[in-house]
């Protein structure tokens, strides 16, 4: 035994190697639960700083990723909200239109405005419906009468607006029942023509289509009387009418297709 210790003492390198190897193999020979315990203790000593740092970095990275995803979601939801609001308004407009439209006699074709006349003052516009659109069909929106289709190529049609030279409507004063012809002459206002001097039309009266012209069904709102003048030298009154429709903000319209096609104005 003595010579072994003296050999080990003299050969330091070998002793150190033997000690290290025996130590490692002893650790390997330990039962698993003891090895696990030792490893856990040593892991907490040597690896804890890195694991905690890695955890913090991972959290920061995940916060950034979550933030980016939430921003994208926010933009998406904003766009969706805008769409919903648009749909809600459109829905409300359609509901209003359906309230006054003569649903029973007409097939209602929804359409939307795709182009305005490129002149200084719009007298026509292009619409696109979800079905084929025929000529001379009346076009309305939730406020009242818009005009009539003057040309059509399938689902796309040109609408002659009420505030243009190509659209005249047989009208009736809703209050006094006086008849006349609503037509455009100049500017933004319409004129109610052919009203005799003895017919009573007053400012504020609502004009509706009389249905006598053959194109427009009766009861569509045309506008409100804004001015009445009577000159004894003339046969008819001069009546100015403000259109019910805001022609500058037309978006969704309805085309009324009667069961029997109109022949023209």
């Amino acid at each position: 035994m003595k010579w072994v210790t003296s050999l080990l003492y003299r050969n330091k390198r070998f002793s150190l190697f033997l000690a290290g190897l025996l130590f490692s193999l002893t650790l390997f020979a330990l039962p698993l639960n003891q090895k696990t315990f030792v490893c856990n203790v040593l892991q907490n000593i040597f690896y804890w700083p890195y694991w905690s740092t890695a955890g913090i970095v991972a959290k920061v990275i995940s916060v950034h990723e979550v933030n980016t995803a939430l921003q994208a979601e926010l933009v998406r939801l904003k766009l969706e909200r805008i769409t919903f609001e648009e749909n809600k308004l459109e829905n409300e407009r359609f509901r209003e239109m359906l309230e006054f439209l003569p649903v029973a006699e007409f097939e209602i074709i929804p359409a939307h405005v795709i182009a305005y006349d490129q002149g200084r003052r719009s007298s026509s516009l292009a619409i696109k419906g979800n079905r084929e659109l025929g000529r001379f069909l009346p076009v309305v929106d939730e406020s009242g009468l818009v005009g009539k289709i003057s040309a059509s190529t399938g689902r796309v049609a040109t609408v002659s607006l009420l505030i243009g030279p190509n659209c005249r409507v047989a009208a009736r004063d809703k209050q006094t029942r006086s008849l006349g012809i609503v037509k455009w002459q100049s500017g933004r206002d319409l004129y109610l023509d052919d009203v005799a001097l003895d017919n009573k039309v007053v400012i504020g009266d609502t004009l509706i289509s009389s249905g006598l012209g053959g194109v427009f069904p009766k009861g569509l709102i045309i506008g409100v009387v804004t001015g009445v003048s009577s000159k004894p030298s003339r046969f008819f009154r001069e009546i100015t009418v403000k259109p019910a429709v805001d022609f500058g903000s037309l978006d969704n319209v309805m085309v009324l297709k009667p069961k029997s096609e109109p022949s023209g104005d």
Partner: protein
Amino acid sequence: MAISIIKFLLLAYLAAFCQTILANLTAIGGVSPNFGTIIIVLIVLKSDFQVAFPAALLTGLVIDILNPELFGLGTAIRFAIAAAVWELKCKMDLKRLAARVYLLMGAEAAFQLFYQCCANRFDLDILGHLFVEVSLPILLYTSVLGTVAIMIGDLSVKIQIKKAGGG
């Protein structure tokens, strides 16, 4: 003595750092280099056995604690490899870079061979697959990174010599 303990502690934390953060940062396609072998070979090449052997033992131990099931096996193999590298260092001329790189490659190859054989109980069916798909990529990656580390070490030595000569 106290300085030696601090140095060994720093080495242990360096090994842990290499095995966690650095291994994750340098992983390519899920393959990380074996920093344990690189550290041990570099220490053995640069230090006396009285420092190199405990350092190799400590490095092996710190790396091994991540695998409690085989705790001690990797330490023993790494320690034995460190001793073998020491013996080769004493007998070979390692002035040339290539010789040191071959030594590193040999050390990693020996580690992979012994560790996989012992860990998988010499199951040849598994070993063939493991050597090709796991050990070989690690060996190549470790060799490349180890070569870079040896070159950086040489460069720092050259700078120190130059500074000493200039001074």
